[in-house]
């Protein structure tokens, strides 16, 4: 009996302590920002730049926690299954929230139902480029060259089902099914090695990897994948300008919280993101890594954006036949 009273008192104490914690002003302890890719990669850099500024703004440390694996699904799943208290966030990418759901046979989470959108960081345009030895100046000429030489050309990508693979597949689809072989690599670095050396003739990739090679003249940029021109390459016409109607290929980063995170917390985080993105230093650093920041995007806008992205890629993934166990 006495033990029972003691236990309930102890439990009561614990509960009040827990309660007191909950009533504290958010954030009252460090926030984990999960990155589902390795240290030093583009998503990690974005997270660290944003994390540093947001720590300052929120008055609590934003700790970057890398959980690489399974094409980003491992880290995203950690957040999907975390408590919706605003202390575990995800730096999401086009892979975790737009491509993987259509690509993986088994998805551990639902990109829409399991997450609360917080805000978008920015988008990175994909650039179409060829090795300098190819006698073409724009995307149209490239398509014609491939058509005239069936069974000869291939394109590189950073992996099966990666955004760069799907860029190539949309290019093939829009040109009426070119005979163009997909050659996947383990990431963008080794692919760029082979592209700049001419081992493969063409590829799509983001601006940060493409720019130095374009400037050095080892590869030639043909087109930008976004609807508007890339900030880093203002003279390069877009695919749409070159007559590829509706061609849109880019990667993006956005922050998500687990579903059912209270709205005040989401709004507070979104406001911090907007302030961070409007900061000159942060904006500049993100631009350095090829991102066109999109400050001021609301959670609702991000929700619509994700749905649109999911709808955009699903048919292309299906048509490409790409599939991951």
């Amino acid at each position: 009996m006495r033990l029972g009273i003691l236990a309930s008192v102890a439990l009561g104490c614990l509960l009040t302590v827990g309660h007191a914690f909950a009533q504290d002003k958010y954030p009252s302890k460090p926030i984990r920002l999960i990155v589902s890719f390795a240290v030093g990669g583009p998503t990690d850099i974005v997270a660290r730049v944003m994390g540093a500024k947001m720590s300052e703004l929120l008055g609590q440390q934003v700790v970057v926690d890398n959980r690489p694996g399974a094409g980003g699904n491992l880290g995203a799943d950690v957040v999907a299954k975390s408590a919706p208290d605003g202390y575990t966030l995800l730096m999401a990418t086009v892979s975790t929230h737009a491509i993987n759901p259509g690509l993986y046979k088994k998805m551990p989470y639902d990109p829409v139902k399991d997450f609360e959108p917080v805000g978008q960081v920015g988008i990175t345009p994909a650039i179409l480029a060829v090795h300098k030895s190819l006698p073409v100046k724009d995307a149209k000429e490239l398509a014609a060259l491939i058509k005239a030489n069936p069974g000869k050309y291939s394109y590189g990508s950073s992996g099966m089902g990666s955004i760069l693979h799907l860029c190539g597949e949309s290019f093939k689809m829009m040109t009426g099914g070119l005979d163009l072989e997909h050659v996947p690599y383990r990431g963008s670095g080794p692919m760029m090695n082979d592209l700049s050396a001419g081992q493969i003739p063409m590829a799509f990739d983001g601006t940060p990897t493409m720019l130095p090679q374009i400037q050095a003249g080892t590869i030639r940029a043909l087109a930008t994948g976004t609807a508007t021109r890339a900030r880093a390459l203002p003279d390069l016409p877009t695919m749409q300008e070159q007559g590829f109607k509706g061609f849109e290929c880019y990667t993006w980063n956005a922050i998500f919280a687990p579903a059912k995170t209270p709205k005040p917390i989401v709004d507070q985080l979104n406001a911090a993101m907007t302030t961070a993105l409007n900061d000159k230093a942060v904006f500049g650093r993100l631009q350095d890594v090829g991102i066109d920041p999109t400050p001021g995007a609301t959670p609702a806008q991000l929700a619509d954006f994700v749905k649109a992205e999911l709808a955009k890629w699903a048919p292309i993934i299906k048509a490409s036949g790409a599939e991951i166990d």
Partner: protein
Amino acid sequence: MIKIRNQQDLAGGLFLMGIAALAMYFASDLSMGRLVRMGPGYLPTVLCWLLGFLGLIIALRGFTIDGPALQSWAWRPLFALTAGQILFASLLERAGLVAAIVATIAVSSMAAPNVRWVSTLLLGVVMSVLSTILFIWLLGLPLTIWPNFG
């Protein structure tokens, strides 16, 4: 009657053949493709055959060439160290770094022939303090120190 001359080789060869058979079974639903256009199952299958074949030769050598007999196993270190690793893996994220370290050291120490609990506990405390300072405070690894109640 056939005499086993090298128990080690016979057991080793049989072990490799077992691995090869098991891997072959798990690779059976992967598509093979052709030599010039290999599927994901091509190389695993080839390697399984090769491994099985090598295992067979090694096992047969057990009958022809003299060699060492099988030694007894030291079960205590094997179990204690394996259990220690499993404990660390399961405790680290749930109970924090300190609990994981103390528990792992306590269990792993049982691998030694004579356990001295006081010094083991002391070692656990020293390692906890050291690791917390180094990995969490100085290097900023995203680990928790204490269990997370609540």
